[in-house]
């Protein structure tokens, strides 16, 4: 049986790997190195022999604890290659200044977690990666992008879309935001795939304050403001007035209205 995780939920219960991960870990730790190497060549997630990234994390931690260089040398390149493929999509050249260095920093940062596993202030950080690798890795990535953007004082470098002629019209305002809310509900469909990239570009092209207002109100579901001083709203989250939020939404609507016919 795989070594239990040690990180705890807020209620004190221990983190547990999802059952399919647990089963695969139990199987993978029994594999001889040549068999493991064969399994590591499988890249199709739908292939039964495919080893999940959560499982690779477990094997690497096991190798780190046991000082097993052969195991680490077999597994680490595969995990890092998957992460690099992810980063080439999510941190592409041209969207951030010096994206190449940033991707390298993120890969190095991931290896750092293995180096410091069991040490320091957060010795069980990799437990997240053994449970939900992709969500944990996106955390590492988004945090790194956030820090890089703050350091360079540059916001995501995407050319602003031209303002739509529909700017300021009430119907366009409603339509544009209906599309935003819908987009977050329908994005797994094939129909959405055709519009994903331009829609994402449009959202990212918004000035940060407008993007925050749009996402807080139309995706997360906050009210613009409230008369109840204890209620959290988009205005309280952004430390501004409800009127400011509405102004930002109006400006954003004009820029997003072009999608009312497209999406």
């Amino acid at each position, binding site marked *: 049986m795989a070594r239990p995780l040690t990180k705890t939920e807020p209620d004190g219960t221990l983190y547990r790997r999802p059952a399919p991960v647990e089963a695969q870990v139990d199987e993978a730790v029994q594999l001889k190195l040549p068999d493991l190497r064969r399994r*590591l*060549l*499988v*890249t199709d*997630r739908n292939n039964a022999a495919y080893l999940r990234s959560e499982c690779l994390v477990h094997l690497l931690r096991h190798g780190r604890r046991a*000082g097993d260089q052969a195991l680490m040398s077999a597994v*680490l*390149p595969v995990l*890092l290659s*998957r992460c*690099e493929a*992810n980063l*080439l999509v*999510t941190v592409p050249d041209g969207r951030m200044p010096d994206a*190449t260095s940033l991707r*390298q*920093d993120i*890969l*190095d940062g991931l*290896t*750092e977690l*293995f*180096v*410091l596993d069991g*040490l*320091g*202030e*957060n010795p069980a*950080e990799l437990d997240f990666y053994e*449970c*939900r690798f992709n*969500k*944990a890795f*996106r*955390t*590492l990535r988004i*945090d790194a992008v*956030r*820090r890089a953007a*703050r*350091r360079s004082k540059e916001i995501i470098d995407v050319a602003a879309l031209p303002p739509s002629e529909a700017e300021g019209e009430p119907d366009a305002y409603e339509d544009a935001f209906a599309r935003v809310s819908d987009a*977050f509900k329908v*994005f*797994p469909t094939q129909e959405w*795939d055709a519009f*994903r990239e331009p*829609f*994402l570009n449009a*959202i990212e092209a918004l000035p940060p304050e407008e*993007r*925050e207002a749009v*996402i*807080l109100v139309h*995706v997360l*579901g*906050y009210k613009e403001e409230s008369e109840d001083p204890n209620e*959290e709203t988009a205005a309280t*989250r*952004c*430390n501004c007035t409800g009127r400011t939020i509405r102004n930002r939404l109006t400006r954003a609507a004009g820029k997003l209205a072009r999608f009312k016919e497209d999406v």
Partner: protein
Amino acid sequence: MTQTLNANPHSLREAFYALSVAQDVPDAKLLDDMVRRYPEFGEELTEFAIALAVDSLRGERVIEAAEAALDPNVVSPAVSRAISHFQNRLHAVTAGERATETKPATPASPDAPNPFAALPRPEFRALAERLNANAVFVGKLRDRQIDPRTMTPGFQRRVAEELKAPLEVVVAHFAASQAAPVRQFFKAETKPSAGDQQTFEEAVRSCGLTEAQQQALLEL
């Protein structure tokens, strides 16, 4: 919206993980819950939740397709560099662990692992920025040009945090003696020495830092 980069990076990332693994796309209820759990990171969590929502627009398919297209027999230069980084850092940390096990007292050997040595140039510069200093100052830390007895514990902790290295490794590095050149022959009549160490304050004052940067470092 403003946010700080000076928060304890471990606690902040812990909060980010909790938000990220809870749902694919966060909603107001989840964000409110997380801000109640981590009230010191309200602004950071709000910005992170927005980033998560925007990021979710990409969907998993495009990432899956990129992974499926990998040639498992090819290791890219970026992955090679990351593996090299891992091996160097692992060596430094495990050597530090062994040193701590065998020498509980502060070591003064020039062989203590240098946690700065494995840093690639971009990370070296990034470290300088995270410390609100510059490369000249970090170079002095790397080369043990500062008398560790004049450094505050707060400063040493901050360096360890930003280096993501165990505090004991960083302290051992600072406490180790400077490395003198090891070549067999020298042009000078006497063997070169590593030079005198500066006090922490002298080092801070002589690196071309702004007044505000100097003040911030001295107050750590």
